[in-house]
């Protein structure tokens, strides 16, 4: 076995590795023909390299080679499915620092306009507002009776739910920030 690997390494280990690199970056199954073209070798050589690669991956590592949808593709070995799922499963989306800041300002000062948030933070908060809207944590309440009739924002039921609050009076008191009633 060892001898076979060494022979493969001598003769075309480089092609095996190149094929691995090619399959690694490809977003979809790659055909034998495309692999041959990209590596500048004959399809026959690539087929041998694929076989050697498949053998090597089968023996060690967390990745394997599959022939799928008319091409070749790398994928994780099934025994790591659970751990992969742990990593990929849409985790409770953590809010970024600035989105949290905007959310806090809205929670304590609602109803509030984007302009007023800007005055408090000193930076535009459009992106954070959009993220918070998408997550259903804030909502447009109404329009302020002021020039331009700007939108007033407030928190949602979902916000209370997500942050484990019964109602807005549950918000912890913050020195210097008047609570909402």
């Amino acid at each position: 076995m060892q001898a076979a690997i060494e022979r493969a390494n001598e003769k075309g280990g480089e092609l095996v590795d190149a094929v691995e690199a090619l399959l690694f970056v490809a977003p979809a199954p790659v055909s034998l023909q495309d692999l041959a073209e990209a590596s500048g070798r004959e399809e026959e050589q690539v087929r041998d390299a694929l076989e050697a690669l498949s053998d090597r991956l089968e023996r060690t590592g967390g990745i394997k080679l599959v022939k799928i949808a008319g091409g070749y593709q790398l994928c994780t070995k099934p025994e790591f499915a659970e751990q992969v799922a742990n990593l990929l499963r849409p985790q409770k989306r953590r809010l970024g620092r600035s989105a949290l800041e905007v959310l806090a300002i809205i929670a304590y000062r609602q109803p509030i306009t984007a302009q007023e948030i800007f005055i408090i933070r000193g930076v535009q908060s459009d992106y954070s507002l959009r993220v918070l809207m998408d997550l259903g944590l804030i909502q447009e309440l109404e329009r302020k009776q002021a020039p331009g009739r700007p939108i007033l924002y407030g928190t949602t039921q979902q916000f209370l739910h997500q942050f484990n609050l019964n109602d807005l009076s549950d918000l912890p008191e913050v020195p210097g920030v008047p609570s909402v009633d």
Partner: protein
Amino acid sequence: MKPQVERESLTPGGVAVPPPLKIESSAFTGSLATLFHLAREGRVDLSGIPLSPVCHAYLEYVFGVAPDRVDEAGAALLALAYLVERKAWSLLPIADPPPEQEIPELPAPTAHEFALAVDSLDTGFRERAQLFFRAGGVEGADYEIPIEIGHLTTNHLARALERLLSKAMPTTVEPTAKKRPSLAEVMAKVLQRIQSAGKRLGFVDLMPEEYTRLDAVFVFLAVLELLRIGRIKAGVAGEEIWLAAKES
């Protein structure tokens, strides 16, 4: 010494660049832009270049310029101001000039000292261009993650379907006008049934009194899909599979 102005002074990005003001003097002949670039890159010694001809050229240019070319004139003024400032710096006494260097090192402020930083970034960029990362989909959307269905196995599911089918009536010939429900409709119906029940339901509880094999298959598929998208949960009690709504 006449300033000659050619008109073509906006970069593709819409940024005004200094107009190609021609400077002719004993120490330097060329455009203002050239002098500016040479000075910025530390390739000329400004201390040896009199700036008064440059200023004259600028003044002549600015008095001749049309009022709509104010950006361009501003860019020229910036370049000139930079030269003046750099010249002022270069005239300051240098404490201990390193003997081995021919060109005196230019004191700050200058972008010249960042040349090495730029080069190193460039190198990093070129090295990085040799590395390729996986073209990952958005947040792993390309990956099939196993569905969480507790202790259910495919065997459990298969047996449940078998039992369901065994109780099915033979398929009746439906009038062609009758629309076959879509899977989405069946899913909605099944979900509503499970949610309103408020308790665990078996497969059979989802079916009407009489149903065809096709109905059974549809309901079975709907349940699988609802499990997949995480709207319901399932478990095993003895031989039977129970289904319940998942609190969202």
